[in-house]
């Protein structure tokens, strides 16, 4: 006997763990991110505030820029005379932005839901002097980085297996990106140089 029934799957789904990524955006290699970015800066995040403009609410985080890698930060949306990140309030899948967090920001200048290149990918926090990825991976990278010398260039992306590039103590890290497109230098100066190299020395 064949008998059909309807399950209220949505009710059951409420208890289901969602996948880590909450938004569909293809992964972009760092070189591509660097080329697509309008502005690349090393900066520190200020305290985020909620701002409603023309009926749309944004979470606005001011940026204190310490170094311009590419582009002009003045072209970014401004808040109280300072460049700022405008992220659409209620949006899932964007990096958690904490006041005081320093990092590299690869950004689009126009006003859109998320200013990060790759939607969420263009943010690389600097943790314990190392460039990381946001989220748990950043903590892992930060923890593991304590066992390496400052000159060691270590891929931190999950997919970066078996492609560690290690520099010699006292030797500057390479200015080019590792062969693995998902890997990147963790030394901030090397990371900056790699970004510039990806943009063709701009």
């Amino acid at each position, binding site marked *: *006997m064949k*008998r059909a*029934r309807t399950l209220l*799957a949505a009710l059951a*789904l409420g208890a*289901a763990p969602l996948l880590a990524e909450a938004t569909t955006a293809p992964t972009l290699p760092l070189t591509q991110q660097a080329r697509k970015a309008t502005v690349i800066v090393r900066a520190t995040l200020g305290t985020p505030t909620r701002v409603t403009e023309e009926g749309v609410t944004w979470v606005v985080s001011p940026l204190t820029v310490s170094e311009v890698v590419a582009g002009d930060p003045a072209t970014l949306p401004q808040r109280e005379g300072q460049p700022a990140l405008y992220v659409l309030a*209620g949006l899932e*899948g964007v990096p958690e932005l904490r006041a005081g967090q320093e990092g590299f920001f690869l950004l689009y200048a*126009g006003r*859109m839901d998320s200013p990060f290149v790759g939607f969420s990918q263009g943010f690389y926090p600097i943790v314990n002097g190392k460039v990381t990825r946001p989220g748990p991976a950043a903590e892992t990278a930060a923890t593991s980085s304590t066992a390496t010398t400052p000159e060691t260039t270590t891929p931190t992306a999950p997919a970066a297996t078996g492609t560690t590039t290690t520099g010699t103590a006292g030797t500057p890290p390479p200015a080019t990106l590792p062969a693995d497109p998902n890997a990147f230098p963790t030394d901030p100066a090397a990371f900056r140089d790699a970004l510039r190299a990806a943009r063709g020395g701009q």
Partner: protein
Amino acid sequence: MRRVGALALALLAGMASAASVKLRPQGAELTRAVEAALAAISTPETPVTLDTSGGPLLVLGGTVPFNPDVAARTLTLGGERRIEFNPQGPLPLAEALRAELTRELGLREWTPAAARVRLSGADLNGDGTIDLTDLALLMNNYGKTGALAGDLNGDRRVDDADVRLFSAQYRF
């Protein structure tokens, strides 16, 4: 003994079950795309149908400009969950839709097998397979009342009806 008998009968019954997913696609194009996507994970034994009485809103486009690298975004506005698809995004609508729904429905992949496991409710421990561990969980609550693991038909009791539903999903 009666429980074992009921289980054996149910396992032999080979019944089919259907699952409906609650989504609210807006517009004809998106509705057609959702129906096509659900058809791709349906089988005669486990049809998956669209229930538009609830669930997140699915919208093509949005009021705020999209990041050019995003195919779809999820946001909550005024307490309402929305999945908005970028008309100029990097992926075709059908592909973006499958990716979003795979995540939204908690499927491992967009296949009939993954849908059967996830949507049947028989994967009681949520490990991605329907096996004897799930059956043990159900039988542990057999004869009990309340919102319990194994109450597959949602009638707040675990009984032969739930065993029969489980049997429709279990594969030796």
